[in-house]
């Protein structure tokens, strides 16, 4: 069984990196991606079986925190905040938790010169697996 995943990030590069990484894991399939919260809000209703949303925070039009609230009320999907600014103990992390995010993961890096999955993709995949099994 493949779990439906949506990517929400204004960086096309980050979307591509995540898509490339997740291709190696057939248990997850990316069914849609969105360039900001507003775009994601329009698309989320097309995916009633969505299992996971990988969500950036800093985005134009509607940021990740605002979309998080809508997603929480309109979808059963688990929400992973994927951000380079929402690190341990930060106010971003506290806010993400308070607003009901399910997990927070630092953005993957080293896409070209290093083994992405080994470096930090593992953390993301582990988190995704844990959440879908809950």
């Amino acid at each position, binding site marked *: 069984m493949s779990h439906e995943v949506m990517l929400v990030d204004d960086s096309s590069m980050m979307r591509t990196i995540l898509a490339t990484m997740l291709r190696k894991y057939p248990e997850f399939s990316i069914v849609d991606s969105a360039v900001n919260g507003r775009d994601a809000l329009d698309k989320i209703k097309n995916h009633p079986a969505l299992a996971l949303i990988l969500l950036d925070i800093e985005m134009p039009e509607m940021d990740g925190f605002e979309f998080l609230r809508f997603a929480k009320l309109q979808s059963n999907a688990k929400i992973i905040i994927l951000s380079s600014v929402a690190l341990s103990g930060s106010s971003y*992390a506290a806010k993400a*938790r308070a607003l*009901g995010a399910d997990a927070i993961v630092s953005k993957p890096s080293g896409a070209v010169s290093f083994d992405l999955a080994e470096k930090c993709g593992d953390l993301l995949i582990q988190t995704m697996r844990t959440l879908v099994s809950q």
Partner: protein
Amino acid sequence: MDDDALDFWNLYAEEGGTALEDMERILSALRVASEDSPERQSLIAAFFRAIHTFKGGARSMGFSVIESRAHLGEDLVGQIRDEGVPLTGELHAILFELVDTLWGMLHESIGNKGDVDPAPTAGLMARMEKIRECNRMALAPMSGSGDQHEEVTLSTAHAEGDEADTASEHPDDGDDAETCAPMVSVAVDDEIILVQDVEAEPDASLALHDHDLVPDPEYTDPHAVAVPEMVDEAFIFEPVDPGQLASDPLYRQIFADMARQSLSLIHEIAGTPGDSTALAARIAAEAEKLLHAARQLGFDEWIECLGNIDDTLSAGLDGLSPLFAALVALYAQDFPQADPLTLVLDIMAPGATAVADPALDPYAQDSTCASEHADLAARMMTAMGELVTSQATNRYLLQQLKDEDMVRSVESMLVEYGLPLAGIQYALRQYLGAWQEKVEHLLQIDLHAQSLVEQLQDVVMDEQVKSVTVLASALSGRVDALRAETACSIQLDFMRGLDEQVDSRTLEQLQQCMGQLLEVCVRQRVCHAQSGGPSFSVELVRSEDSVSVHMAGSSCELPSSTGDLFCHLAQDVQKRGGRLVWSIDQDSATVVFDLQLPLTMAVMDGMVLRVGRIDYVVPIAAIQRIVLPESSAVVQVSAYGASHRVLRLDNDQVVAIRHLRAGSVDRDPVVEAADSAGRQIFVIAGKAGLQSVAIPVDELLGQQQVLIRPLQGFLALMEGIVGCTLLGSGNVGMVLNMDHLLARGKQGGRAHGRVSE
């Protein structure tokens, strides 16, 4: 290089270039945007996002040097965006320098296919770090600054130096580029702190206020809760308590919007003709979405209500009305708005104003002005109705204040707490007496204002309400036109109803519907001058909530195809919330139409009752008596296998008891509130020609003039309810359809039988 890697390089180059172009454009715009320009904040936010994106790209490629430079820039802009640090000229210049540097790094990294050498940009990094640290120190909370104004001695300082330098080292001096220049050290209560002061002069003195030192003293992060320490840059949170989410105003707003949309949609679906099983499935799906949201926020009442929808729908759509009414009441209770009546009406009748089919109504264009006029009058009526309601609320509150014996309350308190009452009693009585006089004065003013509004309402009512003769005259003109066109002799006579008054919007709709019926009848019949023409007789009756027209046409040999046209017209009438039925007798060449349309609005004096949690309004004109009988006066009557509760009044009159329920009348037996002696309040209501009924109520809330808006579409099917209104208490009240209630009383009254105590 594989395809994936090539994609990444292309994206890195493209996205990085776009982000840097954005940064340049924003910095240029910020140079000319004034300090108090509203777009300044959004420009800074956009710059933050652009540098954040650039940093993310470098990070994704594993270029830690480029990432670190961008990250530092992001920190500086974050201080401006989030912490109120001013964008000074120096900061602006260094951001420009950073963007130039990042351009060079982008090109270099693309050329090298790798990260860049950190050495050439180490100086820039050091300067930026100093500024960031200086800003942080300036923003740090100060302790012990008890005095609001303190004379302090200034001297400019290197932010990271232990010793304060003199102000002669101006920040803009070329060789001072590495200092954090726009800072001054300030001694407050023996603490040395740094604040920004670009205008600082050597040895100057300055009076500082606390707010000069803290950029945004009122700012507190509403979500500043403890978060567990994360391990390895990933953390799975424990589920949040729904109550915590519900305390977030934006969450509540989103839920309110969802609820409003869902209720409107459910209402619309339920009113759609079609297979009831399919409609029920759509309604259940919509309710399920709302139920999910309610669960997330822990809204127990919504969960309970929506959780029952499957059971309710399993019996078909008929049972939906009470549940829907309960949801609407819940909405009004949980999300009180500035204009609750409009809100509830929006839910109940989204787009309820039906649009006539212009193809069927050649006179539709002519009625545009009349329609605008009716719209204006309707809006005025609504505004005035709500004014009256607001005043009723004011009066209710004032009356409460007036009725409260403050002197006695205060005296009791003084006695209770053993204070020396005698010494202050006189002064207190004087003071509270004056206060009470003012309340009475306010009450008088309010009563006067109410009478003025009522006068105004009467004027608009005169304007809004028209005699049915206007309708007769308009239709007569239409008949003349048809007569001239078809050369047929056409007769139209109003046999009953010309003395009735109807609001102009309803009158306009009647004119359109009846005009269309006449058109079809005349045009579909092959008329010849020699054969004479059709004649129509009209009877019009107005009730509290609707107007009914019975139109019979003779000499109307209509082809069978006419039925389709009438079906089309019936659908149009249905859209307006009305009903059209007809019969054609080919043998006798007659056609009979029964047309019913709801009144658009009406104002009436009503008595507000409460049963359970729901408020109802009974027209004052229909109330005969209000009684509090002994419990023994309520008896059970058995007749023809059924039993009814009746009330025996002191004049030996026996009246049927009718219980009230949201969405229905007399559906389930209930036990209303009774006093310690088992007695209960009954409102005896009746009308000429109809048997009276006794309505048991929990509470009488008082008399009020109410503006009734009829229920439209699906909600119009709710038994026994004419419409809704905003009450003085702010609640929405259901206005009872007395004809329906009394007609049931009449049926019950026919059941003569045995009376058992």
